[in-house]
């Protein structure tokens, strides 16, 4: 087990900067999810940990060791690929065993020289991995005779069997169907709890990030936007990108203005309260971007904000009501069945604690 530290790491391909000055300390035993849209640099960052991409600038540490120039096979990491990358000509048994066959391990204690495992030790480890991942009935099969979920578990077993310092996972659930994905999410969290190894997990799916991560690192355009627990990034997004990337539907962001007396926010159709606990209230009359999550817009007769209902989508356990404030689309989430009708008017109120302010120029959070 080990920590992973990005110290001002950049990766450039010619003119293109895939990862830009990344500073990120992943703690020992943590389940860190790198989250972002495609092309944000998260996979490149992961591949740099693996050693599959060279580092253009900065230092990458695994534990206390700078590994910029360490060969992938010597980093004591393992990786689960999106396509699983199983060896199609080997049986499941052989696939799981493969790292044990070629690598040396410090099995006699860290002060003793690393050595290859003998047959009995290998069999024991493979058996354990197969048991944990429910693969015992399939050990003699080739990967082609397995379902997607089973292949995925073989890839996990292969990663797990060598007890590496760090597990790397590159969108491992994206080829599974929705039901299996939900089930595997839980299994991954359980596996992490059991082995306690540091996990670095790349995904574009914020549900995976929110459900599995100890901490989430949100990336965009090669830059790290925010690091924090899922609750932190959800409750206090540092900018409008994070606000709108996390949450389904995303946070509503619309233009507003601080009222002349500085006591509330004026938006098209009414007013909203200023967020609670603001350290410095923006100057009266200045324009701002207001952010409110769909579930925090409450329909109430005395609400300070009036909107018109454009559409109502009923999802069973909740309704999504589409409206507009100015040019911005605004979605309201209401539990159960909504009484609102398309074309009708609604009054909305928001708890001051649930109002977010962003600078319209820098997109950064205010307060």
């Amino acid at each position, binding site marked *: 087990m080990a920590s992973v530290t990005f110290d001002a790491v950049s990766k450039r391909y010619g003119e293109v900067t895939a990862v830009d000055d990344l500073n990120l300390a992943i703690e020992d035993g943590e389940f860190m999810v790198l989250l972002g849209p495609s092309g944000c640099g998260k996979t490149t960052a992961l591949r740099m940990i693996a050693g599959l991409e060279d580092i253009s600038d900065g230092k990458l540490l695994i534990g206390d060791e700078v590994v910029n120039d360490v060969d*992938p*096979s010597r980093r004591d990491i*393992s990786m689960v690929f999106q396509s699983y*990358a199983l060896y199609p000509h080997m049986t499941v048994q052989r696939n799981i065993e*493969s790292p044990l066959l070629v690598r040396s391990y410090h099995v006699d204690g860290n002060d003793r020289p690393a050595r290859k495992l003998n047959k009995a030790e290998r069999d024991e480890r493979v058996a354990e991995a197969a048991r944990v991942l429910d693969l015992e009935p399939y050990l003699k099969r080739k990967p082609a005779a397995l*379902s997607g979920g089973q292949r995925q578990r073989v890839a996990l077993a*292969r990663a797990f069997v060598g007890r590496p310092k760090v597990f790397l996972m590159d969108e491992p659930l994206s080829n599974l169907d929705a039901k299996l994905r939900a089930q595997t999410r839980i299994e991954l969290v359980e596996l992490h709890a059991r082995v306690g190894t540091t996990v670095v997990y790349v995904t574009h799916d914020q549900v995976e990030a929110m459900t599995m991560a100890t901490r989430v690192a949100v990336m965009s355009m090669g830059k790290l936007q925010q690091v924090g627990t899922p609750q932190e990034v959800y409750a206090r997004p540092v900018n409008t990108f994070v606000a709108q990337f996390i949450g389904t539907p995303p946070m509503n962001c619309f233009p507003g203005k601080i009222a002349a007396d500085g006591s509330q926010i004026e938006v098209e159709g009414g007013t909203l309260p200023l967020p609670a606990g603001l350290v410095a209230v923006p100057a009266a009359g200045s324009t701002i971007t207001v952010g409110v999550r769909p579930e925090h817009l409450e329909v109430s007769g005395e609400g300070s904000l009036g909107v018109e209902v454009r559409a109502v989508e009923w999802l069973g356990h909740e309704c999504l009501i589409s409206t507009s404030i100015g040019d911005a689309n605004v979605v309201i989430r209401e539990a159960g069945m909504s009484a609102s009708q398309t074309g009708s008017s609604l009054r909305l109120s928001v708890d001051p604690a649930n109002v977010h302010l962003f600078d319209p120029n820098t997109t950064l959070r205010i307060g």
Partner: protein
Amino acid sequence: MSVTDAMAVPNDDAPVLEVPKRSRRKGKYNAKEVGLAFAFLVPSLAVFVTFFYVPFARLVSWGTYESQRGGASYKQVGIDQYTDVLGGNEFRQGLWHSLQFVLYTVPAGLILGTLLAVAAHRRLKGIKVFQAIFSSTLASSVAVSSVIFFFLFNPAVGFFQVSWQSDPSWAMFAAALPAIWQNLGLAFVIVLAGLQAVPDEVMEAARLDGYGAWRRLTRITLPLISPVLMFLFVILVIYGFQAFAQIDIITKGGPGGATETLVFKIFKQTQDYGKGAVLSVGLFCVTLVVTFFQFAILDRRVHYGDE
């Protein structure tokens, strides 16, 4: 009809349904189906019958005629000519020379082409130029490459002035060189295509698992491209048994018949079509048997992705 449980969720861990290999019904086709199947086959059958089966039958029948007075007339002798010629020294010698040619050209071309393809299968600036150069031997004709090698290793005017072409123990090697050179290009192109079909992620997984370059080649790459290697092996052996121009241009079968392969001996039968036909049928049978064995033996050791 059974009622399907609409709420049942397919169990992902259920064994994958295996379709029995020979589950298709047999011997139950009706006349209409047979007629339709035959109608679909007619175009290809017509081509095969006209250009292969009929000429082949004629060839087999020619083998039963013995040349009289240097080819002036022919006498029907039945199976005797087959037993005489195929059991004789000339056939055995020709077969041995053909085998020598195959032994020189196939392993060398296959191994060199594979090594070059492995070397050239990487993301490097300008690698396409090298890939084009390595595969260029494919684009030159056998005659051209033979002439090049003829003059390259010519004792009088050659770049390397060696007397291989007239030395009985080196002549076959001299004739094989252009074929090795050309096989290399063919092997390069086909193996390179095979390598490109191996997913990058599998090779990366092998790197992370700790496989070094040599182990990646022998334990991952070669098994994964083994169907391609198998295909190459079969066609290179067949090419080897059928080679002619190299020998005609470089050694003309000499010195002292040391490079007379089966094909060359067939070519020489200008006075005796009957014997030529027998040798041809012999070559056909040899190629057939070799191919059959190659598939029968190697097929079991070859990995085909989804089995």
